[in-house]
């Protein structure tokens, strides 16, 4: 007992030192923000066209016809670059302007898989590393007001560094990556000033896909992970993001929940939910939501 008291004396100062909560939570919308960028199709080959769109919101709700300056970037990330894109894509010459508007049409450059994927130039170069789903991505930049965002278009590249038989199997079993299914958002009162925000997506949103497992030296089947991100203007939402368990169905739908707090007499609030899979598929829904 004495030892615990002594330890308390020592430990309490540690408890007193912590990371301060700085700024608003990630879910708060108090300025113009890009909450999501999606592509159709969600995976494209070099030379194929794509359409990009973004969810742009502000404190007063979703912007009707945002003026987004779009650009595609094919600069490879250097070993010295931190983050997900090279700074050359942010304000450098490697960003290829596309157009300005709420949506944009573009085409994946022929050399995208060479710069950003496994088809490295002739010679023994080190290709970029894939993500955990085996994917390579082309950054597409969206600038609106003072907000810069990057969406990542999944590239369909040739399979390299994979044994021929496994490559053949993967090609045979390949199915195109799709965006997450439609998102339904509802808000349910839980008590005075307390609400539950519920997002539902189709169970098929968590797709299965094939991946070469180097350690096992064979193709393996994986399932996408889904994360729902909650945003709101006017009310506080927590947590900002929720992992969706793909095996837990409610009425044959996948569900994510967050808690919102606001005035007890809340008539309407702006709420958005963006659901992402880990292969670049995105879908969103939201806007003014009134408690029943």
């Amino acid at each position, binding site marked *: 007992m004495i030892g615990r008291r002594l330890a308390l004396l020592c430990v309490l100062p540690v408890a007193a030192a912590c990371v301060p909560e*700085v700024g608003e939570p990630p879910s708060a919308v108090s300025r113009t923000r890009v909450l999501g960028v999606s592509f159709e199709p969600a995976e494209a080959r070099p030379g194929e066209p794509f359409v990009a769109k973004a969810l742009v919101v502000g404190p007063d709700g979703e912007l009707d016809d945002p003026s987004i300056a779009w650009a595609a970037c094919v600069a490879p990330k250097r070993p010295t670059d931190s983050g997900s894109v090279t700074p050359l894509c942010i304000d450098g010459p490697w960003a290829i302007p596309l157009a300005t508007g709420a949506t944009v049409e573009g085409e994946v450059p022929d050399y995208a898989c060479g710069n950003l994927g496994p088809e490295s130039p002739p010679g023994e170069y*080190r290709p970029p590393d894939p993500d955990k789903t085996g994917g390579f991505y082309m950054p597409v930049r969206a600038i609106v007001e003072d907000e810069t965002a*990057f969406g990542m278009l999944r590239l369909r590249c040739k399979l390299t560094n994979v044994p021929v038989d496994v490559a053949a199997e993967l090609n045979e079993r390949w199915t195109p990556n799709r965006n997450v299914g439609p998102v339904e958002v509802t808000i349910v009162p839980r008590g005075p000033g307390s609400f539950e925000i519920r997002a539902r997506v189709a169970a098929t949103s968590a797709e299965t896909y094939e991946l070469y497992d180097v350690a096992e030296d064979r193709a393996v089947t994986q399932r996408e992970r889904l994360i729902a991100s909650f945003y709101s203007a006017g009310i506080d939402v927590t947590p900002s993001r929720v992992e969706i368990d793909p095996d837990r169905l409610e009425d044959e739908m996948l569900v994510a929940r967050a808690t919102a707090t606001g005035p007890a007499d809340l008539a309407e609030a702006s709420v958005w939910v963006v659901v992402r899979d880990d292969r670049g598929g995105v879908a969103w829904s939201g806007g003014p939501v009134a408690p029943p």
Partner: protein
Amino acid sequence: MAAAILAFAHHVHHAHDAWAQGGALVTEDATPIRSAAPNEPAAAADSEPIEVVARTAMEPRAATKTLIDRESGRASAGAEGDATRALANAPGVARSSFGGGELVVWGASPEDTQVFVDGVPVPALYHLGGRRGIVATDAIESVELIPGAYGARWGRGTGGVVQVRTRRGEPRETGAALAVDTIDAGAVTWGALGDSGTVITSLRMSLLDRFADLVDDSSREVFAIPQYVDGSATLAFSTGEGETAQISFLGAQDELTRGRDDADPSVRRVETTRAGFVRVAARWEARRDDGTTTTIAPWVGFDEKQTSAQLATTSFGQAQRATRYGMRVEHGATLVEGRGPIEKLGLVGGLDVEGRRDDFSRLGSLALPRREGDPFAFGDAPGGDVAEEETGLDSIGVGAYLIAILRIRRVEIEMGLRLDHDVVAGDAVREPAPRTTAIGYAVYEPSVEPRVAVRVDLGAGTSVFAAGGLYHQAPNPSDRSPVFGTPILELARAVAASGGLRARPSPLWGFEIVGFGRYVDGLAVRSDEAFPRAGKALVPTGEARAFGTQIAASASTSFGLRIAASYTVSRSVRRRAPDESDRPFDGDQPHVATMLGDQTIGPLRLGLRFRVASGAPRTPVESAYFDDFADRYRPVYGRLGTERLPAFVQLDARAEVNVSKEPQGSFYLDVQNVTNHKNVEEIAYSSDYRERDDILGLPIFPVVGTRWIW
């Protein structure tokens, strides 16, 4: 060089009498001709400073070093009862961040400074988190820091050398020490083995982690609570007249978890590191009457370190296991003594062999773990790129050295030459394609390292000295990764020099001023090629420069008050390539000042430490972009290292009261930051990097403990 501070007091009072000594740190005076051998008890260096005691072979010694004995280090304010922590007070040592424990000496990277326990290399001086040394204080005799420009006896490093000497038992002496405080508990025993043998054992384990549940995740994100156990055993005996043999064991195991396991996957950040090592060593030493000494010291060991992390939605894992072995054989002799102007001429020659087999596995982003010079913002996560490898590496180095020590009247010259032959054989020169056999490689890397040191005794307790030489260091074995690094990397080369004046006009006070400089090239840095070659993610183009001056002074009074002060002004810069501009080294602290005070009043011993240090460099975040794929903002950095944390200011106090003489018992209270100064340890950003705030260090931090000796 608070270290230097109490050097004089140490000589004036009787060494190893903790109550009489009161000193927190001891530096070797330049005047004594004989110095401690690598494995020699510190008491040997504490002989009367003016008297020449070199009846045995002359031994090389560092021009500048800080020597801390067990009792003075243990009782140093702010050291929390750990003698090795008192090294933080040494001049030329930068303040490590709370929970870090990195030893930045004369502007060198922590990994450039080698740590030895009884001459055997160990992976770190401190347990993870930096709150405790790897050897219990009651099991050590002394800790010595040579900040740089050392002689040919030491190689394979471009930074400093730390030598921990374990406790030596006295024949027919039996005893035990028990130390318990709020951080850990440990026991040390010593006993006789026959007429001339001794056995010393130690065992210690952490306590603070048992109360970790009292600390929330947010606090643990910054200040991790360490969990560790360590132990040692030494069997020493005589094998003949002037001959001693020793067999020793040393081991430690650590676990440290840092971060917060949040329900929100985008802010989840948990990193767990497990580390451990074991060393088994033997040592045979003969000191003959004719002035020759011979030492044979083989050792084997095993190191292990595993890190696993979940940073937002990105995982990272790394494991490194190393089987290590080595041997040092050294022979020294006095060739000429008292012939004409030559007072003495001695030669020391030796072979220093060290080998290791490393096996690595790693899974994660190329950006992890963070390298020195990488910009970072607290809470940021790497990109989603994932690479994977399992590889191995064998390396062996044979260093042969010869040191000539010549003393002519008041001048002592030490000239050394070290020839190192390193062979590295890796399992893969580049990442093998699936179902193919990796192409291995072998590289032979010789290096020639001349070293020189000159000391001139000016009389009246004053001396001047200078030392310098060439140094080489192999890249970290993990840098030789075919996937994450570059297998064939050249050695980093350094030229280092130091010089200064040490004076002790009176037994009660003295001062020292030392200038130092170091230039290093061939450092492994990240390639900035858009398309790096396979197996060349790192390039050996990095350069480092560090230079500075340290001043230390100490004084003691007849009524037992001792004060000491040191100030180091330095600059440590790096560049990624010769054609790039300099940036501050991550551990650069241009100004570090320390003041120590110590007073004994009857059974009560009081100590104070006041420290001021420049804040560490940081890279400013200029803007941010939203990464839709990762669903998080990512920082856009400005110029590397162009911002600094605010200066660190802290006052620490210590009080110890002796409550029993037989057995000797005492209680102590060591309080860090008694004024509750709000020191900034890091910068926290809002999720969109548009706002920032300070992450403060610990408020008042007390450690309560007791120690009993039977």
